[in-house]
Structures are given as structure tokens and as C-alpha cells.
């Protein structure tokens, strides 16, 4: 069964801005799906329509077989939403926020309290349960929104930039948590600007640009399209003449730092063989950007030219 089925979804805002131009999108049950795009591409509008926060102009949305127009309550029961912006009452305490959310889904008070406790403990903010939400740190606020989204045990979890502004340690622990609940059967749709996050977590990916889906494939297939990788090399001594190596292009950052673009077919081995032959010793290497990021920028640039 498909967790999400979007057909010819269009959204035109009152000011005339067309945010979605008839997109089609399918997400399989149990998938970890990345929805990527630049700011204003249409990601949040898509998520907003699925979560009933935005009215669609036309098209259809089905969640686990339930039609959003015919049975919105059934659709809502399937979805847990973690929005981009903090949207809880800043004056309420943490426990009340999560418990009330369970109540909105029709979960009786006693059971709601039990579920709230489980979720807050899972997200490691149980010890903050009696504090007003405004006094939480940024990372804790993000985790509170995740706990709130999970309290009714949704089958589809939508994460709209869930790790924005949190430190690396918390981000990694959140990734581990998302992987765990996905492995337990929850379908997850993720939008993020950290492409490393999408590459690390997701199995399928769609890229939206200017209201259109320009790529919709599995992550492996997309990464296989990558034709080059960029490395930053630290070399031991200054070199008078920059070598010319087949399949590589070298850009000098400073006397002992080079940015090297390596064609996939040439391979990094050939680069090191050539440098060794020339007597150039490499003391350090790092991957300048991840593969998905390069592909993403390339795809947007191509489409941008087409549109322009």
C-alpha cells in the first residue's frame, strides 16, 4: 500500500503565486523519503496540504488509501507532523502540550498521559515535563515537537526540517531515533536543507523546483548519476607548476591547499598515483561536499537555465 499518493496537486495562493504546478508523488509504506528543494520551491506547501494546514487548489491526496477530500479525519489520524517553525503555546508546560495533542486525537486523558510520558522519555525531555516550553533550548523544542507528533502513534511522520538549528550531537541522536522508528514501521517524509541528512537517512528522494517535481527516484540511483567528486588536499610543499592530470581539475586555494575535482571514471586512485609519480606528498584530504549536494545543485542549475 502507498503511504502517500499525490496526483496533479496544484496550489495557487490568493496573491496569485503558483506554489505547485500539478505535482505527482508516491511514497511507499515503510519508506524513508526525502523531499528536497530550495527555499520557496513548494516543499512546505506540499506538506501543508497533506497535513490540512493549506487548502489545495486542485488535485488529489490520498494517505494510506484515505482520500483527503472524502475522509479528512481518517487522513489526519494517519499523520504526525513536525513543522518547520515552533508552533506550540510558549506559556504551556511541556507535558500539557503533548498530553493535549493526544486528547485532540480522541485519546482519553489517562491513556494520553501514559503516551505523553512514553514519548517524552523516548525524546529524552521527560525531566523537563513541568517547565514552560519557552524555557527549553532550541534542540529541546525540536524534540518536543517530535514527541507531540508521535503521541497518537501515526503511520506517517512528516518532518519539515526537524534538525534545523540543533547541534551536531543532538542531530546525530535524532537521526538514530528516526532510523529506529522507521525500522519499527513508521513511514517518514523528510524535508531538510542538510543534504548529508537526506543522504544518510532516506531511501527515496524527490526534488521540487519552482512547484514541479524535477527528480523522483531512489537514493542509490540518484547518487549513481554523480559524475564527479570534489576533494580538498593538503600538500606538504609548495609546487611551482600545477600538474595536469587526466580526469582531474585542480584549483589552487593557497600554496599548500588544492581543491581537486575528480571524474568518477578517472577515480581517486589515478590522482594519487600521478601525484606520487610527481613526488607531491599529500598530508591531508577531505571531501568538500557530499555527492547529493553536488547533484542537487546541478539539477537546480539545469532547470534554472531551462526556466530562464
Amino acid at each position: 500500500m502507498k503511504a502517500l499518493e499525490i496526483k496533479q496537486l496544484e496550489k495557487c495562493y490568493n496573491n496569485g503565486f503558483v506554489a505547485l504546478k500539478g505535482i505527482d508523488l508516491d511514497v511507499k509504506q515503510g519508506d524513508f523519503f526525502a523531499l528536497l528543494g530550495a527555499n520557496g520551491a513548494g516543499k512546505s506547501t506540499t506538506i501543508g496540504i497533506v497535513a490540512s494546514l493549506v487548502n489545495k487548489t486542485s488535485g488529489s491526496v490520498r494517505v494510506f488509501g484515505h482520500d483527503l477530500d472524502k475522509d479528512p479525519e481518517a487522513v489526519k489520524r494517519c499523520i504526525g507532523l513536525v513543522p518547520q517553525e515552533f508552533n506550540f503555546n510558549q506559556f504551556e508546560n511541556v507535558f500539557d502540550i503533548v498530553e493535549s495533542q493526544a486528547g485532540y486525537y480522541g485519546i482519553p486523558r489517562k491513556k494520553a498521559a501514559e503516551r505523553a510520558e512514553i514519548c517524552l522519555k523516548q525524546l529524552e525531555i521527560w525531566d523537563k515535563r513541568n517547565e514552560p516550553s519557552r524555557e527549553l533550548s532550541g534542540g529541546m523544542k525540536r524534540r518536543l515537537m517530535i514527541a507531540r507528533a508521535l503521541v497518537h502513534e501515526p503511520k506517517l511522520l512528516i518532518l519539515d526540517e526537524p534538525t534545523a538549528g540543533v547541534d551536531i550531537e543532538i542531530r546525530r541522536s535524532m537521526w538514530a531515533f528516526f532510523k529506529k522508528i522507521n525500522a519499527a514501521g513508521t513511514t517518514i517524509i523528510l524535508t531538510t536543507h542538510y543534504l548529508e541528512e537526506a543522504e544518510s537517512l532516506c531511501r527515496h528522494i524527490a526534488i521540487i523546483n519552482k512547484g514541479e517535481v524535477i527528480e523522483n527516484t531512489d537514493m542509490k540511483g540518484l547518487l549513481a548519476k554523480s559524475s564527479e567528486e570534489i576533494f580538498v588536499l593538503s600538500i606538504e610543499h609548495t609546487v611551482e607548476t600545477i600538474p595536469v592530470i587526466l580526469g582531474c581539475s585542480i584549483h589552487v586555494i593557497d600554496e599548500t591547499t588544492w581543491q581537486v575535482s575528480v571524474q568518477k571514471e578517472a577515480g581517486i586512485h589515478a590522482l594519487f598515483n600521478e601525484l606520487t609519480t610527481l613526488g607531491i606528498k599529500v598530508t591531508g584530504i577531505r571531501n568538500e561536499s557530499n555527492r547529493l549536494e553536488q547533484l542537487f545543485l546541478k539539477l537546480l542549475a539545469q532547470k534554472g537555465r531551462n526556466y530562464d
Partner: protein
Amino acid sequence: MISKEHLVALQTITYKETRRFLRIWVQTLLPSIITTTLYFLIFGTLIGSRIGQMKGYDYMDFIVPGLILMAVISNAYSNVVSSFYGSKFQHNIEEMIVAPMPGWVILTGYISGGVLRGLIVGVLVTIVSLFFTDLNIAHPVMMIVVFLLTGVLFSCAGFINAVYAKSFDDISIVPTFVLTPLIYLGGVFYSIDMLPVFWQNVSLLNPVLYMIDVFRYSILGESDIPLRYGFLVIGFFILSLLVISLRLLNKGVGIRD
């Protein structure tokens, strides 16, 4: 169809709304008690003793029903307008929109909060009035009914105000420029019989007049307007505002793009 889940959701909103106004009771419950006490003291005791009788009652006895109802009106209204606008402002209204609740559950939840606050303040102000006059309530059941109907009507009005409000300034415009004049010109401090015929007829367009009149009847046992007209007008306004509120909520006006 009303399901068990809907009732739980309604209970949750009502509980949350009640918890909100009780948490900030100094801002929500206390001001009306202080203001009304001052009215009793100044208009009832000090000035009232010089006015003499109004429609055969001591002036204090005459103004007590209107002042109690004034507190109910302003509290029911301000509870819903500030809570719903606050939820819009902080975007936590989205918590309810994404949940499987029909519009009527959300609306009824907010109205329940407004009615409860109005009722609590109404009872407190009634207790305070006992320090100034012997209150012999002629029709106690009708008094409670009018409490509730007034609470529902002005909770709806507060809701509509909050839907259209775009800033905190907008939620004080209606109470200042519409609600207060309607209350003051609704016969709290005088009987409409005292007005020239033209202004008596103009006053009949004011829905607050009917509420105060029916409420005064429930306490004193006497009214300016026949009761059936009073309840008809109240019923008409409640029904109209409920329909408008529900339509606005279902269309997502002010809360959904």
C-alpha cells in the same frame, strides 16, 4: 456524526481553556470583580442613594442585574478573542487543525471556555453584590439559563473578532467601540422607559438590551420588554453567530492559506 473521539477532543479543549484562564486568574477573574465592586460602590451606594427609585426598585437593586451581566459579557468575549487570537499568533492553532476534529468541536471547545469564565465571574460578582444589597432572585433557573445564553453569544462574537484580527490591537477595537457602547446603552443603568420614544425604538435594535432585560426579570421579576421577544432576539443572535463562526472555521478564514 458525533463520535467518542470527538467528545474526548472537546473535553480536552475545554479543559485546556479553563486551565488557561485559571492559571492567569489575576488577569482574567479579578479585574471584573474590582470594577464591578467600584460600580456598586459609586453608582449604587454613593450616587444611587440620591437618585432614589427606578421602576419601583432601589437604584442599587435596579443596576445589580445589568452589572452582573456586563461582567459575564465582557469575560466570555475576551476569553475567546484573546485565547483564539493568541493561538493564531503563536501558530499553536495548527495543533488542532492537523488533528481529526471537525470545526464544531473546536468552536464548541472555545465557547465552553468562554461560557465557563463568564459563569465563574458572574457568580463571583453576584456574591460581591450581596455585600451591597439583599438579592432576592425571583427566577434562579432562568438566571442560570441567561448566564449560559449570554456566554455562548458573546463567546461566538469574540471568536469572529479573533478570526479576523491581524494584530493584538484588532482584538481591543470591537470591545472598545462596539461592545462597551452596546452594554452602556443596553439599560444597565436606566430603564428605556426614561428615553424619548425615538431613542426607545433605537434601543430596541441593541441585542444587549434584551439580555439585560431578561436577566433583570430573572432577578427582580419585572422587565421592560415581553420575555418571549427577549428570548427570540437572543436565540436569533446566537444562531446567526454560531453559523457564521462555524463557516469561518470550516473555510479556514484567518487560519489556513
